[in-house]
């Protein structure tokens, strides 16, 4: 008894009773809520941080600003925050996609400006129906992205340089489209302006959306569970699913309640969130998304696995520019105008910073669509908090820069830690 071995020799029938994925004796048992917590903490320790740093950062940022100015977490300010986040957040979804490939698009600001210019000129100067103007702007985005992708796959020019050229060239195109006037106002009664400025979900509808989201989560998890146990694999304890669903419900219901005390949940913001959810599904649960992750992780391996690598690059660059164009349209709608500085200033860098702050790695193959949502909320919170404190943009740039630097440092550190813990 004194020389008891740490690994008990299980009789074979005990092993067979375990799910297929839990039979290896080296696996640390992770059943039940306690086991899940243990796995979670060991993951954190090994540097697999996921979105935890952003969430913690966001709580700190909100706490500090609320302490400095108690109108920061007011319903009114939070509604403004959602309205400000939607446009650049949409652009950031595209950035997440190119970052997953380990590439970059520096021209998203210019593309969003061009889309705004096309919308305004089309609707106001040419008298096109707004649907036609919107489609024209989105098509411009698709074409620009395909051109980047073609240059990248055909000539192997680094995406950094291609899109830097695009940043200048498309800014020129934007000014050319706008013509001499420089600023074109989009009428307030037009659909896109109403959509971006004044369309909010009715209170009841917003709660229905939240409940549907939670119900969808529970149903998919339970269905997944039954499929897994039918296949002889381990499944998540129902208790665990319940806890997570409860957490999700709280995370969704509290903001909805707060937003509903003012104007409510902006439909434009809801569109942004819906796009995030759809892209998350596309990245995690489709062959296309799996291919994107594979190309970002190891291009040569992806190519040898028979993945159409060129097609993946083309589709991602095209999607990125299209999301940029869509973001530009939302921004133009919110501003009710397109001018020479549409998509200029910090649009570009905010979109890229949002994706990185949200936890998408600059090194490719690691990240999630949700980082666009989390990241843009962090950036807009800083921006909104500092303007509430009457600090001018010089401070805002410095603080945003510092947060970006912090986020990239966390990314690099956790990458190193993951490598050391065999989770690269």
């Amino acid at each position, binding site marked *: 008894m004194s020389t008891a071995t740490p690994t008990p020799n299980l009789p074979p029938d005990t092993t067979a009773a375990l799910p297929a994925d839990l039979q290896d004796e080296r696996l640390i048992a992770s059943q039940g809520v306690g086991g899940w917590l243990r796995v979670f903490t060991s993951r954190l320790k090994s540097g697999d941080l996921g979105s935890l740093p952003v969430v913690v950062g966001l709580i700190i940022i909100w706490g500090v600003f609320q302490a400095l100015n108690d109108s920061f977490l007011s319903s009114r300010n939070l509604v403004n925050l959602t309205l400000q986040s939607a446009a650049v957040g949409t652009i950031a979804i595209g950035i997440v996609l190119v970052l997953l490939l380990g590439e970059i698009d520096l021209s998203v600001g210019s593309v969003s400006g061009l889309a705004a210019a096309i919308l305004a000129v089309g609707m106001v100067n040419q008298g096109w129906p707004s649907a036609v103007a919107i489609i024209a702007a989105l098509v411009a985005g698709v074409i620009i992205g395909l051109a980047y992708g073609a240059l990248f796959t055909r000539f192997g020019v680094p995406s950094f340089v291609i899109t830097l050229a695009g940043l200048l060239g498309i800014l020129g195109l934007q000014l050319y489209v706008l013509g001499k006037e420089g600023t074109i106002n989009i009428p307030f009664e037009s659909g896109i302006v109403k959509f971006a400025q004044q369309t909010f979900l009715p209170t009841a509808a917003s709660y229905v959306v939240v409940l549907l989201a939670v119900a969808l989560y529970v149903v998919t998890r339970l269905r997944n569970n039954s499929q897994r146990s039918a296949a002889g694999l381990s499944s998540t304890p129902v208790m665990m699913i319940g806890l997570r669903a409860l957490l999700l419900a709280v995370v969704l219901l509290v903001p909805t309640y707060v937003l509903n005390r003012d104007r409510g949940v902006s439909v434009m913001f809801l569109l942004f969130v819906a796009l995030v959810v759809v892209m998350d599904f596309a990245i995690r649960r489709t062959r296309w998304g799996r291919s994107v992750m594979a190309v970002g992780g190891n291009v040569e391996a992806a190519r040898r696995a028979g993945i159409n690598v060129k097609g993946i690059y083309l589709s991602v660059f095209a999607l990125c520019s299209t999301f940029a164009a869509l973001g530009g349209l939302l921004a133009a709608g919110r501003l009710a105008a397109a001018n020479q500085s549409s998509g200029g200033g910090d649009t570009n860098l905010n979109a890229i910073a949002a994706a990185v702050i949200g936890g998408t790695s600059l090194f490719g193959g690691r990240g999630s669509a949700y980082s666009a949502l989390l990241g843009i909320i962090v950036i807009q919170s800083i921006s909104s908090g500092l303007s509430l404190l009457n600090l001018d943009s010089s401070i805002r740039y410095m603080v945003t820069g510092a947060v970006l630097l912090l986020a990239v440092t966390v990314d690099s550190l956790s990458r190193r830690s993951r490598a050391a813990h065999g*989770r690269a």
Partner: protein
Amino acid sequence: MTATTAPPTTAVLSLQGVSKRFGAVQALKDIDFDVSAGEVVALVGDNGAGKSTLVKTIAGVYTPDEGTMTFDGRQTSVSTPAEAQKLGIATVFQDLALCDNLDVVANLYLGRELYRGRALDEVRMEQESWRLLRQLSAKIPSVRIPVASLSGGQRQTVAIARSLLGEPKVVMLDEPTAALGVAQTAEVLNLVERLRENGHGVILISHNMSDVMAVADRVSVLRLGRNNGTFNVNETNSQEIIAAITGATTNAVSERAARRVQKEEQ
């Protein structure tokens, strides 16, 4: 006497006169090569002999400049890895070509994911992964961890398991035992024999003579981008093969091979 192997009756894959140049370098010149179902052919040669180039040509990574390829009795040409895969040629490259950021299941099914409705069928892929890995008696603790966290032998196993998913007719293994320990090498060799028993044609690229002699039926030697003899393992020994690899001219086989190459050039 030359190697008197009876010509394979059912060559599943056969190359005739394949050449490949890279700029001024003639990497392959007039290569003839074939493999039958249920046969292990070792492809040996010194560094720079053109083994990897030949493997990549068969796998569709490179397109040959000259020569023909016959697969399953039909003349074909593969210009992409996907075509080779679809045809039934699976390749395990020396660098394994795994995506470190993806888990074992994702790597196994990369490029041929299973669907259930509009989403990936993760459950069935995981179930099948376990079935496949157990069949190869692989020791992998979890298929839901990134491949980066596996050991060298485990990664090799994942790569070989992946090559078997598409039900290939020919499996090419490029230096499968190069980075492995003693026990793991034996396991991979068992695996090779299991592939042969299942009727796969196996092309084994190796520097390790004892591995080659242990599992191969025939040995095909490349030297400086040319054929330098084919040997039946039962009728030869390591010395003879090594002589052919290094080009030592003191044995009859390499002399004959050299003469034949000269004649072809004229």
